């Protein structure tokens, strides 16, 4: 066990955990930030996507010891009141079916739009291809990203 100081959603946190613990489980088990989801544990599905200094990262494969001063943003911290343009667009397009993958989808999309405010279809595909939606809401996800990009 070791003590780690983390900056998550703009706030400082201290956790005492095994250094190999992935950030995903630090968030979910130790900090009760459960909006970040477990899907595969090997960075193949994107359900656990967070931002590390603004970059989309798969938190299931990111040991806590590898995060030093970088800022972590989770879905809970993406916006103050759940009103990020993507969150609003997601509701406008009524994207979710089961909803489980959607926070990861939104986090991947937010990182995309930050770097590329007006992505083409191909760029959206490329950025979002790591996020599986088993319910098959891909068309609505893409439409919501485009709506958010326009706003």
């Amino acid at each position, binding site marked *: *066990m070791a003590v780690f100081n983390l900056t*998550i*959603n703009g*706030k400082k*946190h*201290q*956790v*005492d*955990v*095994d250094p*190999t*613990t992935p950030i995903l*489980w630090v968030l*979910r*088990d*130790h*900090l*009760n*930030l*459960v*909006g*970040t*989801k*477990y*899907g*595969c*544990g*090997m960075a*193949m*599905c994107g*359900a656990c996507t967070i931002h590390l200094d603004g970059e989309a990262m798969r938190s299931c494969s990111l040991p806590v010891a590898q995060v030093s001063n970088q800022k972590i943003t*989770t879905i*809970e*911290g993406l916006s103050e009141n759940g009103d990020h343009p993507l*969150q609003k667009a*997601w*509701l406008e397009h*009524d994207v979710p*079916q*089961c*909803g*489980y*993958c*959607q*926070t990861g989808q*939104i986090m991947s999309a937010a990182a995309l739009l930050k770097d590329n405010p007006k992505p083409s279809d191909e760029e959206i*595909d490329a950025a*979002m*291809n*790591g*996020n*599986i939606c*088993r*319910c*098959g*809401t*891909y*068309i*609505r*996800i893409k439409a919501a990203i485009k709506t958010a990009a326009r706003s």
Partner: protein
Amino acid sequence: MTKTKIASGRRSFLRNTLFAGSGMVIGFDWLAQQSLAAAKDSLALPKEWYDFNAFLKIGDNGLVTIFTPNPEFGQNVMTSMPMIVAEELDVDWKDVRVEMAMHDPAKFPNAAFGQFTGGSRGIPSKWDALRKAGATGRQMLREAAAKAWQVPVEEITTSNSVLQHSSGKKATYGEMAAAAAQIPVPKEVKLKAVKDFKIIGTSHKNVEGPKIVTGKPLFGLDYKVEGMLIAMIVHPPAFGMKLKSFNDASVKGMPGIKDVFSFKTYNEGQEKGGFDANAFPELVAIVGNSTWEVMNAKKAIKAEWEPFATYNETVAGFGGNKSQVKVPGGLENSVDHLAKMKEFASKPGRVVRKDGDPEAAFKTAAKVLERSYSAPHLAHNCMEPMNFFADVKGDKVKVAGPLQAPGLIEPTLSARLGIPAENIEIEMTRMGGGFGRRAYSHYMVEAAIISNQVKAPVKLMYTREDDMTNGVYRPAYYATYRAALDKNNNLLAFHVKAGGIPESPLHANRFPAGAIDNYLAEDWSIESNITIGAFRAPRSNFIAAAEQSFLDELAEAMKKDPIEMRLELLRKAKANPVGKNNDYDADRYAGVLELVRDKSGWANKPKSKVHRGVAAYFCHASYAAHVLELTLEDGKPVVQKVTSAIDCGIVVNPDAAANMTEGAVIDGIGNALFGEMPFKNGVPEKTNFHNYRMIRMSEAPKAIDVHFVKNEMSPTGMGEPPFPPIFGAMANALYKATGKRVYNQPFLGDKQELGM
């Protein structure tokens, strides 16, 4: 469970963030958010709630709580079911809040299907009850108003949560709720005419949308209570194996590990129910403080496994029919499965239906078209792996988590722990996908057994690998179709012989049965120890692909347009049906074909380099047809557009139903192209998403255009019917693109290009 709760915290999620002994610093932002949310919520909460019935309570300020009886896994019943109650109550939708009901057979009776979300039966099975619940509430409000205003009840009208009389008297539902709750429940109520629907038939947003997009705790895996431990299981690496021994010495000392033990999933001689699928009767449980610690111990544990011998077990199906089921010993291979299926396909099957004299017709045929189709086992791969919370205290059980059919698993849990059903409380969380997998909730029983052993609340979590390799798969299937044609390419006879491991996908009385004078349907099945279960449109999801591919090839042999050929058969089935028990409505079937033909512009030639395929199917009491258009880019099929036509009766929530159709289309294309769970020596060869290929955004159709047939029939299935025919539409479009027919799923598998 019948108490009226006023507190806003309807679930015990994350009640306390402090874990005993973990010694960590807590993040407060979540707690702060919760209290903000609670404060906001409480402003809108009434001082008093008044219970009207199982589905409905009304607050003194006019807020209406509608309980949704069936668990939600994405088909949007949590929105559409309350919409039905709200419609008949005549309440303003903005005054409605929705809560997931607890499992309660007394409140929500309906035999085994009580609160079952599956089989596309959610809305159809609750349609009347939901309408009556709303209409009853409205009637009680009207009677209370009539009494208060001393006017005949017939003169009281309602609109948008307001009661009104021509004298000018007015009251809101909230104002009249206390008095209305005292009115005796009417025995009969008048329901609205379909033409008067204001809420039903108009798109309403998912009521849990805001929580989903902000990452609020909704799912089973998010469930937490104070002092809760994490549990995982270790199951045999192969079907056909059982536990021999395990060594817990190295694991017990690992950090955070509380206990390691083996347990039997059923009691000795315990009779199984029809949904008690479980391949592995003995498992090893690892229990500890945190997920990561338990995951590490799970990797470290040493266990030995051994093959089991063939055994029989008693399974009780619906209606109490008991049967002996043989579970064969042995380590099975998909390669052998296919060989065995081909062998069975070459022998006479069990005749399920015979019309006319098909044998004679085939003998006299000028031409016989014969084709065989196969599909492998599939894993459901719900995005949220199987998990459940359990807290067993003495003879009381609290369980909470994702499951489709609480009423089907409760008796199993009760029998296994020897605790009466009335002492078992089942809370249904939102599910991260279901697709049939969560109708088999053995993991809930496992969680309760573990909690009972460690005397603490536990959350059992399957890793992705556990989820993918623990069974309940879509069976492997095989079907052979034959058609006899005369020299003018007229259809003389039709023969289908289909089977699978371990069940046949045959639906002998579906189209084209009834449309062909000489018709023969046979089935067969092969025993297996690989556990199978319902997978979105069970059996239909394969047989539709085979049949619709064959009809396409048959239409070509008959030199007919594939839609017109089907319509001709349907006209015949309507005008002069052959045989009995044809279980489809020829007009409605033709209706979706005509609609998809018109909406897809089928009469026009496809654009350059665009290749089209059509397919239709009837299952779960609904009709669906698709036209799929694709191009080939570097040998890879790219679906440009799918046009869908659906007849599911009244469409309760049109945009959500369109979403469901889009999802079914994408799911179907993904499974048709990539879906496969192969076995080698009993071992599931795919274990996670690195080798189990799932359809991704770049592979999804660029557009899906969904159309519904408008009618006033009571709603029928929606979650499943659009799924089966898309496999056929895909196969038929691939043929147009490549000139080669595809017969064996998956059409692409792990390849990037066709024909590689």
